[in-house]
């Protein structure tokens, strides 16, 4: 809801009280979700430029040149609050929205990702949420025909009242076909097309910019309903319109509906708009003030030059797409809304889109953590400990989820889900890898370090396959910015991601911020873990076949690259043993991270690595087990020498120190591999060998792969149908 200060400010600038319609428009555009009023001021910390960035943050999708006459585009968004209330439609329309962002830049959408957070599944409500979120994403994405190529899920009590649904869409476009989200020429027509407009999602963004109230009925009004069949028709129609270069500008109707779509087009173009609401195709009777903020799905707004209008209308009719010419671009710098001739709103674009008073936000103090591990003790039964980790919902097999997603439609999928990253082939023959990560437990203990390390984890996922990082997109999910401690978590996280982007020289070209993920339950404040979701895309050298993480040769060496320290605080092992996380999480070590990365990348280039995995959640134990999980081989380890300062087997197995990789290297390639390690001045040890028996032999204990697979696959499926 618009605050008193904001209302006063608006009245002052206008020189009068805002009308009812104007209030509605200001309410949506000045909401946190649309205006980024609490977060924008920190984005200067990000690295956002690079030679190959064709279009950075600001429009629907970020675009990067991948050569051969193609740009790859990416957009990332959150749809958290609606998914908590109506998980099926919330998730489905989240997917719908992100697709629209990418296609509104002129791209063909070729891949989807989703990053989810829920409370623990032993609570039936969380099982209900995940089942319906997954079904919503599945039914929408599968129907539209875009494959899911990546994603991740994490579980924690902090998400009980605020589940998270972050979505990514990637696509490609030829440079000459890019459509910009701006209205540059006064006199051009505003043409809306796609579905008709109804009451759904009225003030959805306003709803997303508040914490949940105890009154469920209040929350219920803001739900949007998706229609993938309509979306597919819009996509087909848009393809024709873009092919013939008929559109001067394009924006999708997303958060904030028509107010946001036309407002941002005008702001970007330095122009104004005037709209006649009676021209808008409606699904039901609506008040004009509702039409202008409705968030009905599957609608697009195009800027069309007069000479192209007839052809555009013809194509829209041929495709049976509802459409209307609703207004035009003006040169008066205002957003004018009329209904049957009566002016209902006339706001300066500058006021509407950026003119909100910047709210004061206080960055509180993050409580300091100690790095003591006095809680740590060796497990009584190592086998059980490893199996329990494999069974943990934060580590286990996720095929219950991703087998519901079509991964192969469009026949570009080179690597399926279930590996470290999904890989798609692009029309210029290049392969790109996509992955996303966030360890919210690390972030809850130290938001800056946790964020930077989460980004590093994402990086390690694509590097382990042999790809070089290309760009970052992020979705930052945090609590209530009006509360100093929550705000501090956000700011620290931005610092962490900013550092990472500069340290590794990777541009951030797309992203989203979702704040207010807090709820009051029985008088208590419940806030989510700081959850900065970091998506990284990588590109493979021409002709390179991505390396997966499954052991493929018998009697090959398994090397551990990097040093291991007793980083047990913030680890999954700690969570398992004492039921919570505390202490300082694993440090972010950019220099060592780079060295390991360079070893692995160069080793891949020379074809020295047969399979590779990065070490992350669950430490070396879990990373090794995952390499054997889908393999016909097992391994036998000798853990006598591990570089670093760990002094027990359990520390070595479960520490989550950063900058480490496991590589399967055949005997003949060993010398060259070790040379590379030396060249890049990093540490390595030979952990053991691959064997032909399906047994994970840690020397002091061993686990049959049958038991391991059983634990791994039942992790999620034991809670779900």
């Amino acid at each position, binding site marked *: 809801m618009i605050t008193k200060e904001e209302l006063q400010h608006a009245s002052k600038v206008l020189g009068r009280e805002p009308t009812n319609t104007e209030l509605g428009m200001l309410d949506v555009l000045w909401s946190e979700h649309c205006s980024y009023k609490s977060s924008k001021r920190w984005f200067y910390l990000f690295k956002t430029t690079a030679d190959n960035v064709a279009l950075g943050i600001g429009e629907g999708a970020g675009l990067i040149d991948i050569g051969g006459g193609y740009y790859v585009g990416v957009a990332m968004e959150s749809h958290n609050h609606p998914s908590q209330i109506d998980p099926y439609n919330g998730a489905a329309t989240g997917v719908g929205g992100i697709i629209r962002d990418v296609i509104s830049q002129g791209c063909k959408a070729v891949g989807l990702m989703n990053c989810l957070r829920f409370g623990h599944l032993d609570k039936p409500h969380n099982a209900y949420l995940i089942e319906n979120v997954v079904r919503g994403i599945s039914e929408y994405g599968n129907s539209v025909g875009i494959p899911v190529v990546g994603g991740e899920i994490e579980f924690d009590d902090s998400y009980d009242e605020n589940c998270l649904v972050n979505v990514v869409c990637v696509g490609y476009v030829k440079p000459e076909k890019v459509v910009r989200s701006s209205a540059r020429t006064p006199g051009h027509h505003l043409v809306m097309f796609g579905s008709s407009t109804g009451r759904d999602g009225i003030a959805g963004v306003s709803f997303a910019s508040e914490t949940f109230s105890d009154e469920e009925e209040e929350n219920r009004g803001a739900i949007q309903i998706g229609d993938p*069949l309509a979306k597919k028709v819009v996509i087909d129609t848009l393809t024709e319109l873009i092919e013939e270069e008929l559109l001067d500008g394009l924006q999708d109707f997303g958060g904030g509906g028509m107010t946001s779509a036309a407002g941002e087009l005008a702001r970007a173009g330095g122009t104004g708009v005037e709209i006649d609401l009676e021209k808008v195709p409606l699904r039901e009777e609506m008040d004009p003030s509702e039409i202008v903020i409705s968030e009905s799905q599957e609608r697009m707004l195009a800027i069309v030059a007069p000479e192209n209008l007839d052809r555009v209308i013809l194509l829209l009719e041929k495709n049976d797409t509802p459409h209307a010419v609703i207004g035009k671009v003006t040169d008066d710098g205002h957003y004018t809304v009329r209904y049957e001739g009566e002016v209902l709103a006339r706001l300066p674009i500058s006021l509407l889109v950026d003119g909100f008073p910047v709210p004061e936000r206080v960055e509180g103090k993050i409580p300091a953590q100690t790095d003591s591990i006095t809680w740590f003790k060796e497990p009584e039964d190592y086998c059980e400990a490893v199996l329990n980790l494999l069974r943990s919902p934060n580590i286990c097999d996720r095929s219950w989820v991703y*087998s519901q997603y079509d991964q192969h*439609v*469009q026949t570009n*999928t080179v690597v399926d889900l279930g590996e470290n990253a999904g890989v798609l082939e692009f029309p210029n023959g290049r392969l790109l890898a996509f992955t996303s990560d966030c360890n919210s437990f690390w972030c809850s203990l130290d938001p800056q370090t946790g964020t930077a390390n989460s980004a590093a984890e994402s990086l390690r996922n694509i590097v382990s396959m042999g790809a070089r990082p290309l760009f970052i997109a992020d979705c930052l999910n945090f609590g209530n910015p009006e509360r100093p401690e929550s705000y501090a978590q956000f700011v620290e996280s931005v610092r962490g991601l900013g550092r990472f982007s500069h340290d590794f020289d990777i541009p951030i070209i797309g992203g989203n911020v979702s704040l207010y993920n807090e709820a009051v339950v029985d008088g208590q404040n419940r806030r989510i873990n700081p959850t900065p979701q970091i998506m990284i895309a990588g590109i493979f050298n021409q002709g390179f076949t991505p390396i997966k993480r499954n052991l493929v040769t018998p009697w090959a060496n398994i090397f551990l690259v990097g040093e291991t320290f007793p980083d047990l605080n913030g680890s999954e092992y700690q969570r398992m043993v004492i039921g919570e996380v505390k202490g300082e999480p694993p440090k972010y070590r950019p220099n060592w991270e780079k060295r390991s990365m360079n070893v692995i990348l160069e080793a891949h280039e020379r074809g020295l690595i047969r399979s590779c995995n990065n070490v992350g959640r669950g430490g070396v134990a879990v990373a090794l087990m995952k390499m054997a999980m889908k393999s016909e081989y097992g391994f036998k380890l000798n853990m006598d020498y591990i570089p670093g300062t760990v002094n027990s087997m359990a520390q070595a197995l479960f520490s989550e120190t950063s900058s480490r990789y496991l590589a399967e290297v055949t005997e003949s390639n060993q010398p060259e591999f070790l040379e590379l390690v030396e060249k890049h001045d990093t540490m390595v040890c030979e952990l053991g060998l691959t064997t032909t028996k399906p047994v994970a032999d840690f020397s002091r204990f061993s686990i049959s792969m049958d038991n391991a697979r059983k634990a791994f696959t039942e992790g999620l499926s034991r809670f779900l149908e």
Partner: protein
Amino acid sequence: MSIAVIRFPGTNNEDDVLKALGKIPDANPYLVPSRKGLAGLKDADAVVIPGGFSYGDYLRAGAVASVEVIVEGIRDLAEDGKPVLGICNGFQILAEMGLLPGVLLPNDSSRFICKWIYLKVCETNSIFSENLENAVLRLPIAHAEGNYFCSREQLEALRDEQRIPFRYCDSHGETSTESNPNGSLENIAGVTNQRGNVLGLMPHPERASRQILGSSDGLLILENFVRAIK
């Protein structure tokens, strides 16, 4: 010769099928939007109905598409003996049309399932499975309603007339409950009509047409299809 590849509103595999068929010499696949009606099939020597969600699967998978005008043209072509291939949603449409016996019910798990499966090539007097006796093919499936069901009489006829060319199996070619991804009757993944020129198949051969995607076994089925067009 040319192959009509039909697109209904909501079909989303038409490009994949065009790409895959395009690899086969002399196939000449071309896209026919369903709204073109009978005129769209004028020059077709064969028809492929690709997968997807025609009409959003809103009523029953394939039901609304099966009553479109163009479908009568497909029926005529089939009666003329021309080859007709229905993949996934295409199979559902052929069954709703009655060109193939049986019905595709919701998967046992009641969820959409996407995974790689193995197909055993069974009877080989079908044009689609020629030269593939005892082959085990690796193809992906992606469907929510692939659970094949037909009456006892229909099943007997299918068996007697050797009209079940493909069944789900494991990597060694053994059909078993474990290797059945969706609960299909007797692991049936595809059936033909009496004349043998119409095949409905749930797995996607066009998605297994290049090694880089994980398998090119699907190309074998498509090549047989093209070869059968005289």
